């Protein structure tokens, strides 16, 4: 992400890569448009990206951008290709998705500047005047994204030196409009995109079988391996181990230890002095009174097992019980199990103790933030 890196950093893509990726481009566009659902979790989206490719594709557009304002007149086709190249593996955009709106806003500002002050400037001054160049350079990083959607604009990169500036201005406006829309759906779309990727990328090397079963099997194995690698990074002390069996062992141990910890902690909480009461319920009631009728009982009845469902009275029961617990009197609230014990006033409740123990202020929101 260094937009000011010199022209020497430019890395031009090789020809076959370009061809391959432009083939995949259409397919990815179809994925983009057809299914913009939030289907993939971001960490699973991350893993399908081969790291070196991700790095390369993250950096190549930025490194191509800065000097392209100068070279735009000379080689626009390559410029276009470079913008296109970033797309198929644009799962890398997931991290940058949050920044797009910022870029768009920045671009908006710059564009306003250009329109207000700079319209004579852009007409009169050539593109290598320092002020204009800086503006162009600043706005560059959003461009490859914009190119993806505005294919009609990008499809005619003709060579014209005179009204180049005017045209880039116009282009930028269009891109900006589309870029904003793109930034909204880019996250889910890119996730979807990344979910589809391994099937696209599977290719048989020399000496490998090429029938569909072998290819599918290889794709499956690669997916499993990638996920395994991610899991390996997640589980502590599992980084240096190689070998599926050992990694699985470590994972099993980790899960078991976590489950045991849950056991121990619940034991500890059960054995805790029942005089202690929590007024977290009041806090909950204050902040979300609608929680009781929103989704908890509904969640209790999963879709997969429909015989659990027809239980409308449960919700009412729950609601009544909530009202009984929280609204009329504070004495029965708290832990549910530990009712009937004396209620501790909010001054010496759990929250104040926790916060005083942590030497923070006596604020329930702070506890929540800490959690």
């Amino acid at each position, binding site marked *: 992400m260094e937009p000011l890196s010199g022209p020497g950093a430019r890395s031009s893509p090789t020809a076959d890569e370009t061809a391959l990726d432009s083939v995949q481009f259409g397919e990815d566009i179809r994925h983009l448009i057809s299914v913009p659902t939030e*289907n*993939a*979790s*971001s*960490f*699973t989206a991350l893993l399908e990206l081969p790291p070196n490719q991700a790095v390369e594709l993250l950096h190549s557009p930025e490194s191509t951008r800065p000097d392209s304002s100068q070279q735009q007149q000379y080689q626009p086709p390559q410029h276009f290709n470079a913008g296109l190249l970033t797309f198929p593996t644009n799962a890398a955009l997931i991290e940058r998705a949050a920044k797009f709106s910022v870029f768009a806003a920045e671009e908006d500002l710059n564009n306003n500047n250009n329109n207000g002050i700079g319209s004579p400037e852009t007409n009169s001054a050539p593109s290598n005047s320092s002020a204009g160049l800086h503006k162009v350079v600043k706005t560059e990083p959003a461009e490859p994204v914009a190119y993806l959607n505005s294919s009609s604009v990008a499809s005619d990169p003709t060579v014209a030196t005179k009204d180049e500036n005017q045209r880039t201005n116009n282009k930028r406006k269009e891109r900006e409009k589309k870029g904003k829309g793109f930034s909204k759906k880019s996250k889910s779309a890119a996730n979807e995109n990344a979910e589809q990727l391994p099937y696209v990328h599977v290719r048989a090397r020399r000496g490998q079988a090429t029938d569909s079963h072998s290819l599918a099997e290889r794709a499956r194995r690669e*997916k*499993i391996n990638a996920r*395994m690698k*991610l*899991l390996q990074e*997640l589980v502590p002390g599992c980084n240096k181990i190689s070998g*599926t*069996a050992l990694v*699985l*062992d470590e*994972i*099993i141990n980790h*899960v078991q230890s*976590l*489950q045991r*910890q*849950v*056991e121990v*902690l*619940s034991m*500890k*909480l*059960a*054995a*805790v*002095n*029942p005089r*202690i009461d929590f007024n*977290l*319920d009041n806090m*909950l009631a204050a902040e979300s009174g609608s*929680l009781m009728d929103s*989704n*908890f009982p509904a*969640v*209790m*009845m*999963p*879709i*997969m*097992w429909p*015989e*659990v469902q027809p*239980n409308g009275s*449960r919700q009412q029961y*729950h609601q009544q*019980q909530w009202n009984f617990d929280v609204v009329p009197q504070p004495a029965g609230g708290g*832990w*549910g*199990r530990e009712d009937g014990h004396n209620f501790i006033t909010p001054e010496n409740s*759990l929250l104040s*103790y*926790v916060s005083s123990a942590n030497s923070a202020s006596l604020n329930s929101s702070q506890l929540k933030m800490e*959690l």
Partner: protein
Amino acid sequence: MRPPPNSSSFKREFLKKWLLALQLCNHNNNINKNDVVKRKNTIKLSAEIAMASVRNGATCWSRALIAKHSSSFHVTTKPRHMPPPPPRHYKKRVRCKKIIKRSRRCCHNRSAAAAVVRRKTAVLRKLVPGGELMDDEASLIRETLDYVMSLRAQVDVMRRLARASDCVAMCNIV
């Protein structure tokens, strides 16, 4: 699938739902205050259900967990007909010893590692709730990822709560 649990918001949600689940448990079956084991079970049950419900049925393990525990939540109103038990993949098959020996001899080197991996995958499948229902290894690993993240958040919240209640107890004594 929803995005993975973001730590702070996930924990907050979990805490909320946990308290709700505790209330629900308490009112469904009144527990003797001195029975520590029962109370522990209640706490654990409610915590698991809360953890699963925070994921909101987006993942396989959460659905399986809720389904597993849903019977214990319906003490008063029993379901009319029980769901058929999930198919078991792990039957112990009775085989002739000779055949086993021969098979080991013939392809020992190749399949030994694979067998180990298979065995461990089976163990993992038993650990992750709903793992028996997944016949795909990739989805199993994905679910495991999600489950581990959620478990971590749960353990963290519980630990904080335990520490806090310890603090309160100490202060009450003093």
